């Protein structure tokens, strides 16, 4: 009997994929984008990989992210080539290499963003659990995701307070660093203590395996994604080894 609670199929919010599949996709895209030459057969494979995050953002209905990613990629892929002839060599020497790297970095970073966007912390923990990855890795990571918004919130409050008192400006960076970082750290350590008390009450230290109700499991869409990754890796190996 399928109820809402025991639903094992990933929904649209998770891109219909298992977190492990998404991790593999993310790794494949970032590695191949970074280490693949755009020669031979890879000339067609690399754009396919670059377009993948774009498709993902469109399916997730994130038009702004999709447009932003597309514009940035097209900009960094074409503009330096067009400007190359009109710029003095020194500017080319400084910027062209950097922009070339950026073209390779962008898809990997977008895939990482996609991974975070579509995976909740408990899904992530459940997936890592089924891969038998130690708690020593999963607890810090889940705490990190819990903490990113908190850090932002705390920092905004401290920044306002310091502006009100006119303490530390850009003219005095050391002072600014001290009077913003120190209160931030004090606040965060206090929050951390409370958080750990609450987590321990809920059995974080318990030696038993954590149960969950997350839709984790492999389906045909995961098989498609896996074969896509496999195909890309095989093509990459072929092009690297045989010079296709």
């Amino acid at each position: 009997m399928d109820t809402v609670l025991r639903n094992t199929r990933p929904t649209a919010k998770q891109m219909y994929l298992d977190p492990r599949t998404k991790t593999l996709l993310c790794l494949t895209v970032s590695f191949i984008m970074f280490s693949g030459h755009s020669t031979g057969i890879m000339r067609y494979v690399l754009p396919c990989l670059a377009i993948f995050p774009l498709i993902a953002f469109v399916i997730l209905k994130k038009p702004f992210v999709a447009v932003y990613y597309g514009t940035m990629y097209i900009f960094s892929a074409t503009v330096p080539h067009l400007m190359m002839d009109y710029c003095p060599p020194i500017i080319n020497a400084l910027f062209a290499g950097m922009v070339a790297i950026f073209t390779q970095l962008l898809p990997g970073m977008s895939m990482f963003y996609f991974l975070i966007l579509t995976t909740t912390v408990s899904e992530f923990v459940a997936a890592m659990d089924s891969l038998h990855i130690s708690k020593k890795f999963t607890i810090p990571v889940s705490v990190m995701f819990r903490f990113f918004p908190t850090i932002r919130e705390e920092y905004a409050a401290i920044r306002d307070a310091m502006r009100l008192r006119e303490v530390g400006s850009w003219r005095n960076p050391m002072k600014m660093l001290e009077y913003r970082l120190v209160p931030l750290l004090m606040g965060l350590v206090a929050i951390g203590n409370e958080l750990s008390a609450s987590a321990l009450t809920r059995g974080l230290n318990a030696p038993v395996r954590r149960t969950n109700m997350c839709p984790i499991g492999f389906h045909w869409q995961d098989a498609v994604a896996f074969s896509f990754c496999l195909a890309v890796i095989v093509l990459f190996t072929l092009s690297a080894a045989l010079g296709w």
Partner: protein
Amino acid sequence: MEKQKNNKKLNGKDLLNTGIFTAIYFLINLLVAAALGLIPVVSMLIPLVSSLILGIPMMLYFIRIKKFGMVLITYIVYGVFLTLAGVGIYSLIFGTICALIAELILRSGKYQSANRAVLAFAVVSIGANANVLQMVVAGGKALAEKAATYGTDYVNTIAGYYERGWVLPVIFASAFIGGLFGGLLGKAVFKKHFIRSGLV
């Protein structure tokens, strides 16, 4: 906590602490990289500046560490994040190695010595900033590809910038020095604020 003082194994509270400081580490690194990374020449300063600023939070973390493994977990998590984000696997490999060395340094002082914590942070800064290596490798590779299109003149100009032998050692040395000064700064701040306020 008092009850488990003799317990050498990491418990939930230690892991939570690790997560909190890894989050701070990751965010500040990201901010520094975003602020400086836009300008090519200045981006070579990222290791120096980020290690310098990170000295303050990391000293608060390193000095309070009493068990083996927390530094290691921090840098493994950081490295895995960077690897997934496509910045390259070098931070994971070298970060893990340097974190192991740092753990041994901390352990040799029996987790009591603040000076050893400074040294450990300086060592670990080198490993964490090894992703620069990826930039250099990929930069060279991307340029080699373009040699056919843009002619050798142009490529020679840029290849010189990336593949000069002294660039890498200088970057790693700057990470170490940044870590050292950041650590000393952090130690001073630690004494001035955190001990006085009774946080520790």
